[in-house]
């Protein structure tokens, strides 16, 4: 049963990933040494894509959990269901990943309830075990298992901070928007735009990122730039594409909207 499920989580086609630095080597050696990994970085800069790539490279199933504020420990570990008048235990995503020795990726971990983060503690230190309270089992993680969590240090809420006791178990990889050249080639690869449009879009991205902290919460992510590029390739006029996929997505404030729209019209 688990075998079949784990196959569903495996990634068969090589995902496109352009490294920003030495993150691939760092991740590989963290995995080899059984150290869990924390990915830090703004939204849309390639964290999830990186995980897909690593899962493919290590040939391991990737179980991704998008954390939300009602995510409980039993959502992660598992629960009993009633089947034909009998209770039957069903593993949660974390337990499943531990059993098959895959990669468990908890996206935006700070969104989850605080008690949830404590569940991963024994998995994230040298015990490398997941106690399943309800069944009394102690799942020992095989060597191939890896736990990775991500969070965005740019969020300002004081209620969503990662506790030291959690973060000090992890190896931290910092992600940011790629350098101009690299981001340009990502756009060219992902959306098949020509070099000129790609470089203009990248410059647009940088301009919006300059506004972070003075009006915008975040600048345009690489993901948004890819969206715009795809629309342009599809035949949408560049200004309309930027407006729909970047400007309007970033803000609702009329002053910001005008300023960003004018930046786009200066560029194209």
């Amino acid at each position: 049963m688990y075998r079949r499920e784990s196959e569903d989580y495996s990634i068969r086609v090589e995902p496109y990933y352009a490294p920003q630095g030495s993150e691939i080597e760092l991740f590989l050696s963290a995995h080899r040494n059984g150290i869990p990994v924390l990915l830090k970085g703004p939204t849309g800069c390639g964290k999830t894509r990186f995980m897909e790539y690593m899962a493919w490279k290590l040939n391991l199933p990737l179980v991704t959990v998008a954390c939300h504020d009602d995510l409980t420990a039993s959502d992660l570990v598992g629960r009993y269901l009633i089947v034909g008048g009998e209770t039957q235990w069903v593993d949660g995503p974390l337990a499943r990943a531990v059993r098959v020795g895959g990669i468990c990726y908890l996206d935006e971990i700070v969104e989850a309830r605080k008690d949830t983060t404590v569940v991963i503690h024994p998995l994230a230190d040298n015990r490398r075990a997941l106690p399943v309270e309800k069944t009394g089992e102690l799942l020992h993680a095989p060597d191939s298992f890896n736990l990775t969590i991500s969070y965005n240090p740019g969020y300002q809420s004081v209620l969503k901070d990662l506790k030291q006791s959690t973060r000090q178990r992890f190896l931290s990889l910092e992600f940011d928007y790629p350098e101009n050249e690299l981001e340009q080639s990502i756009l060219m690869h992902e959306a098949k735009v020509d070099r000129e449009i790609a470089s203009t879009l990248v410059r647009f991205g940088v301009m919006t990122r300059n506004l972070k902290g003075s009006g915008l919460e975040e600048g345009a992510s690489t993901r948004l730039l890819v969206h715009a590029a795809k629309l342009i390739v599809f035949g949408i006029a560049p200004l309309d594409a930027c407006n729909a996929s970047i400007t309007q997505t970033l803000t609702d404030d009329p002053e910001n909207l005008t300023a960003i729209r004018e930046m786009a019209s200066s560029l194209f």
Partner: protein
Amino acid sequence: MRRQLRAVQIEEKLDELLGAVLSPSRTASGLARKLSGLEKEQQEFALHWAGVISRSNSEMAYQFVDHVCDGFRLMDMDDVTKWIIEAMDVYDRQGLYPGSASLREVETYAAKLSQKRHSVPFEDVVGILNKYVKGVSGRDLDIQSDAQAWTDTETIYLPTSFKWFDSEQLNFQLYKATGTFLLAQTRYGTFRVDPNTGVPFVCAAIAQYRDPTRALRIFESVEHMRLLSLMQAELPGLVRQMGELSASADSSLEIDGLSELLEPIRRPDSDVMDSIRILNELYHRNINVPESACYQGIVDLEKIRHVTRKRVDREKEKFRSDLAMLAESLAGPDENNEGEQGKVNVTFAVDEDDAGESEMMLMLDGQPVVLPEDMAQTANSIIQDFGEIPQEYLVPAGDGQYRKDLQADEEPPEEKKNKTEGMFYYDEWDFRRRHYRKNWCELRELDIHPSNEQVVEAILNKYSHLVRDIRKSFEALRGDNKMLRRQTNGDDIDIDAIVESYPDIHEGNEVTDRLFIKSGRLERNLAVVFMVDLSGSTKGWINDAERESLVLLSEALQTLGDRYAIYGFSGMTRKRCELYRIKTFEESYDSTVKARIAGIKPQDYTRMGVIIRHLTRKLIEVDARTRVLITISDGKPDDYDGYRGEYGIEDTRQALMEAKHAGIHPYCITIDSQAHDYLPHMYGHVNYTVVSDVRGLPLKVSDIYRKLTT
């Protein structure tokens, strides 16, 4: 179909209305003929108003009928009404002659109206332009309004309004084009400074010509072409728009061999010297200097020379004294070798890597040193002026003013310790010694002098619609529901609980009654202290804005039920640090608190470290899961006795770190546009917000608080 009135019919009515000012030599028949050419609706409008006006004055009515046809030709009916009302207003206030004159001058009125309609005032665009310029350049350049468009390389001045085009859209584009063009002047070094004289190259070059006005005009036109060709690479869309804006102007130079001559300024690495060389070529030829484009602004050499001079001196001094401090701090805490500073060997280099990112390298006695952020910024500005860091800048300043300030009174305050009641003593961090000065600051808690609480009511009235919005959004926050599992009663069945108790049900054991899910309110358990800057610099607008912010915030927090306290702070020197109680945790938001909020007044200086330490202590005493310390400020920490610059920033930073270690989340809301230079260092990159417009503060503070705590 309604038919127009014929001239005869009109004349009849006019005779009736205007009888008093008609005579055999001044009949209504001419007027009637004019009106007969109008549409039915317009005729009725004219006769109606003629009647209304004649009740005030018949001569005014006569003049009106005489000119109303011109009015309809030039304006639509709404504007004609405006014209009538304005003329009647003039009549009421100034009498018949000016009144009828303003009816006669219908063409002037119409022209003025159309111009006003399309003109775009500076205030409407400055917010947008600020963001636009910041986005495009990545720098905080100041934008101000002035009679003309120009830049002194520190500030971009734009006219108070643009009415060049008869469309608002185009006038706005003109603002944008002008702003960006002036930005390009500073970015591409139009006013680069000669390191030998401290004067921009262009000022010296123009002064050499017999006809400096002509020389300047030629230079502006050549430099214009150079900047356009540089901008073409980065902002092609804007250059196209600029072309459309200035399409009517003839800005082409026509002489033999022009393209070879202009070749140097078409290169991507051109600089202002190329333009000056071309100016020299062109000046001696007999050419017509082209008109300047509408977005070009003016170049005021005198003002630029003045501003540059001042900046160059200031930055030289700053760079050299920073260098001295850097050298000293590298020499280590051993202070015996003070006399030897100034003898260090300094070199400076800028490396440009493949990606075009430049990195500054400072070598002190052969040791590479990373520049502190504000020093790097000075260095950048100097490089923008000179293209490099001139040699004489690399000599550290002698015994700096800075040090003397601090050593002025260093006798320990031990003897006064604990003598005064209500006095608190706090350590202060000296970043150069890397240790604390023990019991350095004396702090008192004072009550703020209450003022009339009506002020608060007035503020609530002023923002009444906003207060409603704020309450609503905070209520939504409070109602942030959580599913409470395993309850004895509730809206839904808890499947997990049922499943768990399934064996009990099966075996006939007693089953728990906690089988329901209830949605309950999330316990926020949050305590927050607001620390409000009452320094002298907050006088006026800022103080008002702070007061309004506090009122709106209190409303919001009242809705939310978070525990909060508000303190104001100020003081002068370490012996007199003052904390003003506005609202303590224990007090409720009542008339006393309102009166205190009304009574906040600007005081003296801002010594932040000691205040943060004191409030940290207060916050720790409160039992809460999350503790937040929010500073509302207008600038850097600053006190009379040397608590400024790096010293003040480092002490504040240290105090904030202490707070963080104690589990407190510090956050800063500031209106200082320079804040990006030092706040990240003090509070961390995500723990502050700059509110660019003071008037926006009251709205922003509640908004920020809401975002911060969800």
